[in-house]
């Protein structure tokens, strides 16, 4: 994995996912490990994303490395019209690793092919956000003890949600049975269903969340955003159908955990937070360990 950029979740193999998970586990036990001394990470955030940026900064700090960069384009040379090409060419010579977030899709692939140092994609528009997926995998692994043969319910916006598509691609390496629960307008795109079909994996599609979650090992909730609906009345009618309430968790499996990439709006009622099956806040904390693992694997330190 040394020097191997992480642009899309499919850039890494199943074994590489497992390697990241096992390194992340080490960092969870002992988070402060100053193995990155003298190394510099350039955090290039062409659009603001405070949580992701802080998570990377925290990871580098706990590894004893230094962070340079910018957190939006207002204060950087990008506002002066510098191309991404030029920015990346120059920054490459200032650092050992680039972490980049950019509003345009494909920007991370483009940048990774220009740099002389490895690059981690921290989100390129609606395309990919692979470190989120790896932290989802880590969270699932930790709570279930395995990634193999799980039953995973994915709820909400399955059409536009990039985290959902990447999670599907990654989990499909582990013989997952999927249940997709969404309104008609936001169904899982056919290309992903064909992909599962070709792998011989079972999937089920449904419109109702209210019942039938007894089989789930994982419920992965996502936001259903108003702007995704062509008809606002349709949104008002459907939004409450995809809200998870504590009473819906009665009769579910003991090992069930509820995940959400956060921030949530109203799709998980607060009464779920107190249920031990709620895992989304721990999931967010895992982000730092997983990013420590990715950074140290790419720099060849682990």
């Amino acid at each position, binding site marked *: 994995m040394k020097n191997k950029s992480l642009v899309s979740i499919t850039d890494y193999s199943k074994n590489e996912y497992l390697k990241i998970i096992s390194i992340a586990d080490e960092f969870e036990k002992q988070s402060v490990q100053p193995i990155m001394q003298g190394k510099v990470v350039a955090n290039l955030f062409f659009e603001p994303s405070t949580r992701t940026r802080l998570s990377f900064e925290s990871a580098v700090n706990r590894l004893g490395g230094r962070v340079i960069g910018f957190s939006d384009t207002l204060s950087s040379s990008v506002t002066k019209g510098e191309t991404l090409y030029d920015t990346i060419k120059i920054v490459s010579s200032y650092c050992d690793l680039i972490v980049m977030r*950019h509003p*345009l*899709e*494909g*920007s991370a*692939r*483009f940048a990774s092919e220009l740099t002389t140092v490895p690059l981690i994609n921290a989100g390129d*528009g*609606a395309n990919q956000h692979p470190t989120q997926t790896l932290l989802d995998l880590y969270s699932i692994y930790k709570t279930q003890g395995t990634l193999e043969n799980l039953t995973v319910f994915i709820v909400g916006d399955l059409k536009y949600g990039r985290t959902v598509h990447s999670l599907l691609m990654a989990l499909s390496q582990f013989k997952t049975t999927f249940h997709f629960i969404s309104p008609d307008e936001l169904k899982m795109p056919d290309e992903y269903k064909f992909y599962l079909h070709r792998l011989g994996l079972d999937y089920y599609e449904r419109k109702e969340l209210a019942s039938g979650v007894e089989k789930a090992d994982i419920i992965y909730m996502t936001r259903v955003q108003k702007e995704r609906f062509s008809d606002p009345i349709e949104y008002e009618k459907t939004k409450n159908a995809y809200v998870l309430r504590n009473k819906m968790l009665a009769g579910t499996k003991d090992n069930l955990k509820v995940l959400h990439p956060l921030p949530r709006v109203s799709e998980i009622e607060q009464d779920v937070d107190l249920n031990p099956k709620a895992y989304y806040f721990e999931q967010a904390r895992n982000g730092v360990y997983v990013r420590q693992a990715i950074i140290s694997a790419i720099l060849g330190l682990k």
Partner: protein
Amino acid sequence: MLHKKDKKMEVSAIENGTVIDHIPAKVLFKVIAILGLDHIDKPITFGTNLDSKKLGKKAIIKLSETFFIDKDINKIALVAPQAKLNIIKDYTVVEKKVVEVPDEIIGIAKCVNPKCITNNEKIVTKFQVISKREVQLRCHYCEKITNQENIVII
């Protein structure tokens, strides 16, 4: 079958060169652009809006003293998948070829996604061809799929 009169009009013979036939009339200018024919200084004859049973209206291009390597000519398969080539030597057809969509397309087409980096910065586009019959291109950068009907030639 063509009438005698049409036949005469369409096959004004060339001594050596290439005849590209069965181009849908509406993509003739795209084919010209893809092959860069506007930069060739050899004699070229174009015919367009000719009746064709298969294509409705077709176009034909005759190029004297010009030959293509497969890699270049296959690029036109994106817009003219049924195109046929006749290689002419000494007024005789010595070889017939059909075009084939390549596995990878570099340049030529535009990514359908307006938020793609290739539509916002000066970058040569690159696609993996994921379906050849009904052409589907997956952008190497943004990973979005451009379908046949959305293919725009740069």
